């Protein structure tokens, strides 16, 4: 009832005649072309410069950035970060890229592969890609990467391959479409820095409802 009324009003307002083929074609073309609009120069850099820009922008957004040469350094670096912050519990995504890590040196760390729960101190997830233009991480939901891990724990630790960093958001969309067979995952998160709010007198406070800290482990050699 409402639906028909709304469409009627829109079509009347637009003065649409009996022959609407032209408009329909225009729309289908646009939907299929998925053409990019203007992409700022800043986002169109060679790969090495993209990585550098990503680092600068991520730090500006108040994320912490830890550079690693190999993925096999990840477990030790995560362990070190957690112990420095007095955290002894970690929830992980069951992701392929986070399997086969050697945790043998971190005996006191309690690790669990599950969704997040209230009270969790820290989580470790793997980013789908990084976007240089604003230092943004892209993560998405899936059987092995539950979304709660990105929001509930106090500290969010993210592994990011330097080779996955792209310049512009548009490149990330293309990769996401390719990786997910054209079907969107339930949730796609673009994350730029830790949670914050300026709702009290416009004074910025970090750590509103999402993670208070965001630590990115940037892995160079992959």
């Amino acid at each position, binding site marked *: 009832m409402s639906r028909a009324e709304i469409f009627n009003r829109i079509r009347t307002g637009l003065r649409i005649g009996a022959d609407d083929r032209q408009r329909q074609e225009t729309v289908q073309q646009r939907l299929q072309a998925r053409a990019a609009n203007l992409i700022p120069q800043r986002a169109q850099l060679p790969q090495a410069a993209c990585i550098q820009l990503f680092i600068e922008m991520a730090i500006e957004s108040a994320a912490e950035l830890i550079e690693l040469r190999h993925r096999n350094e990840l477990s030790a670096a995560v362990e070190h970060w957690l112990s420095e912050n007095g955290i002894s519990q970690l929830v992980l995504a069951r992701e392929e890229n986070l399997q086969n890590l050697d945790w043998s040196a971190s005996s006191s760390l309690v690790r669990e592969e599950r969704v997040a729960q209230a009270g969790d101190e820290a989580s470790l997830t793997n980013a789908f890609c990084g976007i240089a233009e604003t230092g943004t991480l892209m993560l998405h939901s899936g059987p092995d990467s539950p979304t709660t891990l990105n929001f509930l724990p106090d500290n969010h630790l993210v592994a990011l391959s330097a080779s996955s960093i792209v310049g512009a958001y548009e490149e990330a969309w293309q990769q996401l479409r390719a990786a997910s067979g054209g079907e969107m995952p339930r949730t796609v998160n673009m994350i730029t820095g830790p949670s914050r709010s300026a*709702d*009290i007198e416009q004074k910025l406070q970090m750590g509103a409802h*999402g993670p208070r800290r965001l630590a990115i482990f940037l892995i160079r050699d992959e």
Partner: protein
Amino acid sequence: MEIRSQEFKKSAHIALHDAKLQRALGNLKAGFPGKRAAAVARLPEFDALRDQARDLKNHIIEHLDLYLEEFEKNVIAQGGTVHWCRTAEDARKTILEICRAQDAKTVTKGKSMVTEEIALNEYLEANGVTPVETDLGEYILQLRNDHPSHIVAPAIHLTLDDVAEAFHEHHKRPKSDDPAVLMQEAREMLRKQFVSADVGITGANFLIAETGSTIICTNEGNGDLTQTLPKTHIVVSSIEKVVPTLEDMTLFLRLLARSATGQEFTVYNTLSTGPRRQADRDGPENFHVVLVDNGRSDMVGTEFQEMLRCIRCSACMNHCPVYGAVGGQTYGWVYPGPMGSVLTPQMIGIENAGLLPNASTFCGKCEEVCPVRIPLPKLMRHWRDKEWEKHLTPAAARSGIGIWAFFAKRPALYRMLSWSSNLFLRLVGGKRGRIRKLPLAGGWTDFRDMPAPSGKTFMQQWQERKS
């Protein structure tokens, strides 16, 4: 929310004398405009992006029905449901029905102006469902039984002390005036709510036709917890928010945060598409999109069509001298500032909001900063015309203009009158050339001096130069 737009003059008077409010508004003026300018300066393509955004929005509106159909088709294909609501009443009922079907007791809410527009909270409460606002600003307002005064920073009219007082009263903890402590308190209080809510309601900044996705842009992460933890996620949005593709959404995202808060990018930009997938281990099991019209389809094909481009960034109010002087609540309904002065008459009727399009200095700053280049002053002028046609303009203004017209049609009389009033004002202004008090113009002279005319009338000068 009670409509008080026709009390604008009285409310403005009170607001101008409210020292606390004036201090709070100072925070806004000292923050947003400078931050926006800095962000714009860092992106040389900013103005070119605005042109594209304006053109793309125009294209969308010209094909609005078709993009909405595509969006609906793809939401359904992903296992979601779309509900079409012509009026605020339809929308409230639809949302309540979804909550009832889930036997919902509590509902967490992310920030959404459309739910303010349809007065959802009051309705849910009256029907036995408890809404819990989770955005820090909205949470503060809910505790105080208050309403947003800004579309992005809803509690901008409050001071630290107001917040401290409200938290002290409701949280039963020692009063603190440290914003960090206060935020921590809210975080703890709301954590339980996030986990135990039956339904999560969020708004949407854009609806993506290509994929059937909705997106929210937030800094706190409350919207994400709201939509991920409960069994049911309801997105409440409005029909003009549809965009064709992810690429098209991206164009607007590049403009939104920079125009709003001066951030390079909002912290969390989150796309939601349908309910959780079969093998997913978290996420909602049900996904509903409630699309509200509430007067928007009536704007298509009219002189107000351009207003449908609005992406709710708040730049126009952040830069508006009137908003900056009287604050958002003076506008008397949900949408304040220049965008509100155009939208509110559409949604609640010009007879209930005729003062708003008049509450403008027509300085043009709003249009100058609008990311989708909406000619806000022109649209306000259209409302003034409508008001005039409907004979809604106050008698004083009508008779004032009538008197002016009488003289304007009689040039000799007109010249004599302007010569004599010129002389009179010069005498009153004295050597300083400023007039402190003027009969019938207290509204002006209470807050600033009136400059006295400095020389001869236009016609006198014209005559002299001609000869």
